[in-house]
């Protein structure tokens, strides 16, 4: 799925790095716990989260993610936007809640990552 398609499906507002909306992503994850993102994410390129602090951007960067969607209309700080820009990471914000936002993307083919014991 293109990042631009995600934006449309979530009726989201893009906050930076619009030049990368044409990039393709194949799976996503939703979490407010960065500990879990660091421990369980494998190749998901997209993070959906309701958490707002600089570590959200750095965690995504460590995991080589290329897009973060803030749910429930959360807005990153200007400092976070600067950090994201350094890596060309697309940030967007949607009014939708976590469960709905994830559900919409999943239903449209953006899957998660299956754990071995799932």
């Amino acid at each position: 799925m293109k990042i631009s398609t995600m934006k449309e499906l979530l009726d989201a507002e893009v906050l930076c790095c619009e030049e990368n909306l044409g990039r393709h992503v194949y799976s996503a994850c939703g979490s407010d716990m960065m500990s879990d993102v660091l421990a369980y994410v494998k190749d998901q390129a997209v993070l959906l989260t309701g958490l707002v602090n600089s570590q959200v951007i750095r965690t995504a960067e460590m995991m080589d993610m290329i897009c973060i969607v803030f749910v429930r209309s959360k807005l990153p700080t200007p400092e976070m936007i600067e950090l994201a820009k350094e890596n060309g990471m697309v940030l967007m914000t949607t009014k939708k809640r976590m469960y709905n936002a994830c559900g919409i993307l999943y239903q449209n083919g953006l899957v998660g990552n299956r754990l071995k014991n799932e």
Partner: protein
Amino acid sequence: MSEALTFHFDVDGENFTSAGQASVQVKKNLRQLGLTPEIIRRVSIAMYEGEINMVIHAGGGMADVTVNEDTIEIVLTDHGPGIKDIDQAMQEGFSTAPDSIRQLGFGAGMGLPNMKRYTDHMHIASTVGVGTTITMQVNIPK
């Protein structure tokens, strides 16, 4: 790359917002050295977990990264409270982090096991009341 390259960072323990800066810088440096994305990811995740730990559990510390021909070594040193029971700390889910840390997205007790998982070698030396030194190595495949 015949000579070892070293990077040194002071990790500020007062500032949660800046935590992880050293790991971001190491990731950039390793990219410039042309290492594979897989190796870079393993090193930077392990170091980031350790760096966050120094900030939230130990009031900051130092990070030293050495890039050799066949291995990357990360040494994290702090003068925090130390770890009483290392085996217990290594268990998934064990955390002494307060709720205030959990609200920031950390404190699930996943960091140390994750550092072990992403590295080829990890050693913790810790003395209560003195501090903790964690040494990790990631091998670079030929």
